[in-house]
């Protein structure tokens, strides 16, 4: 059976997971749904894998590691559908998927996402218990083994940027680390957040430039230009530390240090007045413009093997 979904609406975790099955059913030769592990509260974490062959280098995209950034997860849903439906008709995407695999983790923090639907719409972190504290949760984007415990992360379990007791202590992070590590051939790692209109590359844990800074900056600026070509949305481009603030333990710093050169993070749009509460009517415009940036990055990855 298949399920239609309104892309211009926010959805619960169950609806998203159920819709994933439909997408797989509609595109059996292209899309598979794989469980990459379970969350702290035991929810499955599903990644959509777009693949047309075996032993391919791969691109990683995750959306919504911060639970309340709903437009990220919604953009992930739209993007998955876009990839599946455009394969075979969009020549560039088709050539990309004929040479590389694409992994898309739409809900990177399922416990937090469910919590935003049921208890606290403004929840950002995971839901793990912190021994000795009444406060729960770890910021999953301060928990990676990349300058862990350094600047821009809190030691206080009650803080929204609490880094957790140890690097990769959060199972949601560990699941991704294990998949990326065991796969061993990811060439790009892209994390999607909201809402500050930024396109960033490493580092956040240090303000020094990474060796590939000129290339990453150039790719990022071109991607931001493509994004702006649709609705004029303006993005700032740069490394995390200089464009926002030092932030240790971030996912793309870890991926870069793990050898994945094309590591980027996006902060999707606000329309200036909503923050984490971007109206659902903005999902499709946001996803559409974001797609142009993602596509540019992915094409560059395809065309610049290393």
């Amino acid at each position, binding site marked *: 059976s298949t399920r*239609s*979904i*309104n892309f211009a*609406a*926010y*959805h619960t975790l169950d*609806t998203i997971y159920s819709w994933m099955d439909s997408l797989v059913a509609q595109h059996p030769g292209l899309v598979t749904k794989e469980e990459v592990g379970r969350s702290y509260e035991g929810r499955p974490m599903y990644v959509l894998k777009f693949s047309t062959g075996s032993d391919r280098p791969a691109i990683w995209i995750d959306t919504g590691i911060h639970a309340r950034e709903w437009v990220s997860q919604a953009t992930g849903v739209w993007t998955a559908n876009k990839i599946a439906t455009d394969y075979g008709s969009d020549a560039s995407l088709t050539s990309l998927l004929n040479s590389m695999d694409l992994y898309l983790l739409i809900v990177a923090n399922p416990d937090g996402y469910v919590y935003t639907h*049921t*208890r*606290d*719409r*403004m929840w950002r972190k995971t839901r793990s218990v912190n021994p000795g504290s009444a406060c729960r949760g770890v910021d999953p984007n301060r928990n990676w083994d990349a300058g862990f415990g350094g600047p821009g992360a809190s030691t206080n379990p009650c803080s*929204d940027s609490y880094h957790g007791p140890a690097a990769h202590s959060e199972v949601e992070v560990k699941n991704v680390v294990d998949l990326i590590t065991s796969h061993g051939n990811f060439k790009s790692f892209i994390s999607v957040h909201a809402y*500050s209109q930024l396109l960033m590359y490493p580092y956040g844990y240090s303000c020094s430039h990474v060796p590939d800074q000129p290339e990453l900056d150039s790719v990022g600026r071109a991607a931001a230009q493509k994004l702006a070509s649709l609705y004029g949305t303006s993005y700032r481009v740069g490394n995390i530390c200089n464009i*926002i*603030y030092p932030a240790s333990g971030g996912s793309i710093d870890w991926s870069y240090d793990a050898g994945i050169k094309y590591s980027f993070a996006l902060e999707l749009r606000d329309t*200036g*007045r*909503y*923050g*984490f*509460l971007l*109206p*659902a009517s903005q999902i499709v415009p946001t996803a559409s413009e974001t797609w142009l940036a993602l596509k540019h990055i992915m094409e560059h990855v395809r065309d610049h093997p290393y």
Partner: protein
Amino acid sequence: QRLFVGDQVIRINAESEEQIQLLQALETQEEWELEFWRRPVSTGLPVDVRVPRGSLEPVRSYLLAHDLPFSVLISNLQELLNEEKAEMERNQKLEL
């Protein structure tokens, strides 16, 4: 379910390094239970902060006293959340 009745989200555009430091001091002010959606970093970036209803008056006084220019992004957070929830419910019914 946690409610945010009367909470506001305020945008502050700091114009100097001194004003950034004043806002950073606010970050450590636990009594007002502020939640920074965008932290004070530099004058080029706006600062967004959710202010619980009970802290609106002292926060506004603080901002005015230090000539920190601000505007209200969201005047009542719960109203926006109610609209979002109603829209989701309407959509779910349509899909079913």
